[in-house]
């Protein structure tokens, strides 16, 4: 099968659904899973496997300047590190950047005194005060616009959407102002905002709270989009996004917040435009990001047992795509399986590992 590389158009969601027929669902083990409160134990198993292969396979570099896409030296080995959960990694990244640059501030609903609905901003209000960690009323359109206006003067707000779906209310501000002001002003204004929030299918959160908006935002010029999937890249991408002069949308996932991993003690940033090689392989390239990474890695185990050697790339950077890494991989394997994410109904529209295995087998025939 000829290589298919995704362009920036975000058409992935549609193509994935057409490939998978829900009726052919094999062993949907998720239907037997307990309710939301125990999400921690479900994901951690996959998470620890993924992070093991992460350390073995990835070619990350610790760089000082996030916006430069250089291919340079390999990462420093993590001697002593410290273990933490993904939301703690995000918080660490945010706190370090707020310490480093007094222009960084956080705004969102319940980010201050409450500590953040997913605890990403816990403790920050006590440390930095109410002027830097701002509890906003429930008006996404207005406070996103305010963040953008503040950014025009040089502040670096981190705007939290309690759920990515709520950011649809601010779509006008994100698309027309955030994305375009740098261009329409002829370069006079930069908008160094970070818009972040969790999205995606959780545990029966309902249709409106389970949206992935990547494909909506893909068409907005002028913004960068990244998705984090491990505590390591969560912290790194958060820091890089804050330091970037461009508006960056950081997609998190509700179910990944409790992933545990050991991350380095020393400071590091991840490159915003780079993909991560999760598992090098020879036969087929599987592109994934965010939560699907774990499904893919589960599928990869099955595939390896069946004799395949899949290469798994966590694309991380959704806009712009890291075509260099992806291109090299596909040139090597000549086959790719994209697993973009579309969750409007729980469970049977979520791509399951078994489906991934089936797809790979079909492609490799």
């Amino acid at each position, binding site marked *: 099968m000829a290589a298919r590389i995704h362009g920036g158009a975000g058409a992935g969601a549609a193509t994935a659904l057409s490939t998978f027929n829900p009726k052919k669902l094999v062993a949907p083990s998720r239907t037997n899973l307990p309710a939301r409160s125990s999400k921690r134990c479900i994901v951690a198993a996959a998470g620890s496997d993924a992070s093991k292969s992460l350390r073995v396979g990835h070619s990350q570099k610790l760089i000082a300047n996030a916006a430069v896409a250089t291919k340079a030296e390999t990462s420093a080995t993590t001697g002593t590190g410290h273990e933490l959960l993904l939301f703690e990694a995000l918080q660490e990244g945010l706190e370090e950047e707020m310490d480093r640059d007094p222009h960084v501030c956080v705004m969102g609903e319940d980010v201050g005194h409450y500590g953040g609905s997913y605890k990403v901003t816990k403790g920050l209000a006590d440390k930095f005060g109410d*002027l830097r960690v701002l509890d906003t*009323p429930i008006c996404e359109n*207005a406070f996103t616009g*305010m963040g953008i206006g*503040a950014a025009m003067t040089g502040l670096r707000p981190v705007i939290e959407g309690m759920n990515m779906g709520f950011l649809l209310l601010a779509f006008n501000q994100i698309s027309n*102002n955030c994305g375009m002001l740098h261009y329409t002003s002829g*370069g006079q204004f930069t908008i160094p905002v970070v818009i972040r929030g969790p999205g995606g299918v959780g545990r029966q959160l309902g249709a409106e709270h389970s949206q992935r908006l990547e494909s909506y935002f893909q068409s907005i010029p002028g913004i960068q989009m990244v998705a984090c999937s491990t505590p390591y890249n969560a912290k790194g991408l958060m820091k890089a996004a804050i330091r970037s002069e461009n508006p960056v949308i950081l997609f998190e996932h509700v179910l990944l917040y409790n992933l545990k991993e050991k991350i380095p003690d020393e400071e590091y940033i991840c490159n915003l435009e780079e993909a991560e090689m999760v598992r090098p392989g020879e036969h087929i390239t599987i592109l994934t990001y965010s939560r699907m990474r774990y499904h893919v890695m589960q599928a990869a185990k099955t595939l390896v047992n069946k004799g395949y050697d899949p290469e798994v790339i966590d694309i991380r950077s959704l806009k712009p795509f890291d075509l260099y890494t992806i291109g090299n991989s596909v040139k090597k394997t000549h086959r790719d399986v994209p697993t973009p994410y579309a969750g409007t109904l729980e469970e049977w529209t979520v791509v399951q590992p078994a489906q991934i295995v089936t797809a790979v087998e079909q492609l490799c025939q």
Partner: protein
Amino acid sequence: MALSRLSLRSNRFLRPSTTAAALPSSIRRHVSTDTTPITIETAVPFESHLCDAPSRSVETSSAEILSFFRDMARMRRMEIAADSLYKSKLIRGFCHLYDGQEALAVGMEAAITRKDAIITSYRDHCTFLGRGGELVDAFSELMGRKRGCSNGKGGSMHFYKKDACFYGGHGIVGAQIPLGCGLAFAQKYSKEEFVTFTLYGDGAANQGQLFEALNIAALWDLPAILVCENNHYGMGTATWRSAKSPAYFKRGDYVPGLKVDGMDALAVKQACKFAKEHALKNGPIVLEMDTYRYHGHSMSDPGSTYRTRDEVSGVRQVRDPIERVRKLLLSHDIATEKELKDMEKEVRKEVDDAVAQAKESPVPEPSELFTNMYVKDCGVESFGADRKELKVTLT
């Protein structure tokens, strides 16, 4: 520009409340540099909501009133020139003209500094000029030339001038209001003693984001001044058909408001001065400027389907801002009829020269299509419509 020297003839003062800085008639001075304070009463009283209205006596000077005249004449000329450029298809797309509303731009500038921020909607040509923008930059931007204030990439609705804290220039109705409150937030954050004037129209006054932003501004005590330029028509819909409560200065509810005669530059100046002091001490305030636009909503709108020509010419006769200032100058003997006419001729020439210069300016290079997409454009490749041509790496 050297004016002929005038003598101040104190017996010609008609308005009752001038200060008694009586100068002997034998002293001749340059009127343009005369900054002796004069006090003028505004014709229309202020209406206030939840605050005490400022005094109707406005402190000004001959130099200032003359500068009002010159600046407003320049703005008027610019808009008329833009009209004819649009009709000769040198300006395309949308073009929203401000003639009739000039008093707002000049009055506001007289009350504030260049470090106070202004943000407005798409009817931004004159506001840009008021902030110190050059005529030639304005015309170049309108015609999409490189010399334009946004390098030709913004157009009529996207004028910006960062060094003068003019933040544009926005096409989406009302979207600039949260941006403006964000500017005020940044001013408070940096502990600067400056304010932000966020301008919007009577049409935008019905946007939800206005009330959202006002709530936050009031909650966080931001130095934000929301100015409703009520020209009585939201494109083709009159205010009585779009607003249940057309008292826009009262719609802030818990936020104080002031209604101002927006065709009187001195009243505007007084209100903005008052608003700035208020905002720095007490947080946001809403100003409603009662004004009028002679042109239609934009160049595609004749402006006569929803209002009569008599109405337009009536306002022009009775309330025109430039004529009011002219009468003031003549009655206070600050300038003669002939001098004002000469000034208008000079302004006309200034505008014509700027248009000619702008016409000479080249269009942006094709490579400009891809600049300023990102800051330090991150090495992304950008394709043309069919993915085969125009492959460019954003650098």
